[in-house]
């Protein structure tokens, strides 16, 4: 039987909610599915009613998968990975848990996760947000370590230069500032180069963090079922031509329908 929490929401179940790998899930339907029968319904009952993809969620597994993927920075802002990850329509071979080993977090895969019943949309978004926060904290820790290392280098450089000028406040100006007061010793030049490289690395990390946040926001936006803006995709030229053809046919059909209505009205 479905386990229920204090809010009377069924726990342990999730329902297929994907339109061709895109997420259009509403948890409310689970309640409706349960209401259709008795106050509670078994997994088998739900499946019998056509909710064939209802399964018990292994949330811990999904959480670890998402965290693992995020930590490996396997974000992809393109939707190229959807089918590779097992979302091939009509196929059922690639639906075991093991197939998520090479999971890449993007919209298509989120759709696949929900459509295969491994997690609800809300679960995944929550996990991504959590993983993003953890990732951010890890990055901040790394920044602190780099900052500490920089301070050590500053002390070292001050000692070797024998000069007491205050370094520039901004991280970007640091290496330039140090270079300006360093004696022309080989060791000091090497230290300055290392500072430049650290600055560069910091910029890269900042950029990575910015992109990570952007991706997480995109994911949240794309998976929020608040209309078609988040669902709209890039269409190919072939699809555009087909859409135009359908549009033209329907314009013609409407014109004919209006003519027929007018004729009927005149009679």
């Amino acid at each position, binding site marked *: 039987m479905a386990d229920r929490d204090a809010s009377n929401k069924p726990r342990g179940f999730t329902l297929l909610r994907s339109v061709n790998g895109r997420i259009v899930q509403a948890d409310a339907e689970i309640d409706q599915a349960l209401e259709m029968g008795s106050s509670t319904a078994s997994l088998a009952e739900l499946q019998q009613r056509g909710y064939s993809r209802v399964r018990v969620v292994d949330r811990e597994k999904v959480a670890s998968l998402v965290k693992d993927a995020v930590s490996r920075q396997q974000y992809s802002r393109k939707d190229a990975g959807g089918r590779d990850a097992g979302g091939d329509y009509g196929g059922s071979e690639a639906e075991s848990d093991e197939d998520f080993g090479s999971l890449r977090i993007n919209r298509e895969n989120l759709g696949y996760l929900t459509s295969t019943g491994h997690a609800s949309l809300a679960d995944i978004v929550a996990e991504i947000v959590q993983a993003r926060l953890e990732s951010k904290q890890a990055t901040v820790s790394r920044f602190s370590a780099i900052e500490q290392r920089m301070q050590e280098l500053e002390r070292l450089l001050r000692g070797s230069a024998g000069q007491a000028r205050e370094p520039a406040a901004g991280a970007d100006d640091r290496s330039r500032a140090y270079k300006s007061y360093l004696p022309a010793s080989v060791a000091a030049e090497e230290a300055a180069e290392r500072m430049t490289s650290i600055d560069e690395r910091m910029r890269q990390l900042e950029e990575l963090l910015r992109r990570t946040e952007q991706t997480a926001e995109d994911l949240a936006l794309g998976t929020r079922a608040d209309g078609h803006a988040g669902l709209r995709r890039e269409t190919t030229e072939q699809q555009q031509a087909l859409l135009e053809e359908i549009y033209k046919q329907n314009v013609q059909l*409407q014109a004919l329908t209006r003519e027929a209505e007018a004729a009927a009205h005149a009679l």
Partner: protein
Amino acid sequence: MTQVSDNYQPEASTYAADDEALLVGIDLGTSRSAIAAANGVRKMIESYVGWPKDAVAVRHIKKNIVFGTEALEHRLSLRLFRPLEKGVLKHSLEDEEAEDGVGNKQAARELMRHLVHLSQPGRDQKVYGVVGVPAQASLKSKQALLEAAHDSMDAVMLVSQPFAVAYGLGMLDGSIVIDIGAGTTDICRMHGTMPGEEDQLTLPLAGDFIDRRFEELLKEAYPEAQFTITMLKRVKESGAFVAGQVEPIRTTFPCNGRPTEFDVTEPLKSACESILDGINEGLHKLISSFDPEFQSKLRSNVVISGGGSQIIGLASRIRQQLEDLGGGNVHAVEEPLYAGANGALQLAIDMPDSYWQKLT
């Protein structure tokens, strides 16, 4: 059962965006109708509409109109309509003659309106929809459906049902879609362009045909058994198969008023097999009349969808029949009952806003 009031003023949806129309894809079927909406709502109902026969029935049912399973449950108290036949709107004299306007056309309108209502559009939110129709629906049928749809949506586009399925699956080039519904089986070959008339076939061999054949065979085998088509449909939906069945299928029908168990395995299998030859012929026709260089590509991408695709063993039987043409690959879509609505929704989503606005 979801309680639906007769008042169609929709409640403000949690998901609805105020400044955007709600896009929906509808599969209006003879037996079941499904809607998939861009706000995440997805519903399916039996395509039945009923009006209470008299004031007593209104008091009993407490509604002026009922839909789906609820309508079937109360069918003795209702004027019951299943407005679609063979995938298109039924045209009957009753429509013209009914003084209160109740008839198949009105039922189709109400059914469409009910589906849109179930998709929970926001208050005053516009609704743009793509509706799947049988591959070879006549102009008159399309016009009738368009008219019915315009009552509940601000802009409507009709597309061939199997095309919608293919579009949703992204199988636009070198594939064949066999959409097996209740009224019709639509077969459509996709070759990278908009399928023309020569690319599509509509056969009357579908779920209803199986039900009738099942009835005939059962009457022959068990003349004493008492059953209705609705009862047989339920048996079919729980155990339809054409291959691979090991356990016998037993069901209970009244026999002179006494519940009696019958083994319906063989009649059910024979009834399900009765659509195979027709589908095979249609498939052969569409493959053999195609460019010979690309025939093998078509054969290797055959997809079955619709409620009929849930018949156990159907894909393997069709695959066996393809052996005559050199073999091929047949598989069922992941969501047979929603594939049409999903594809229609995908079309609605991909359709540029400017097209929708011009149609309003």
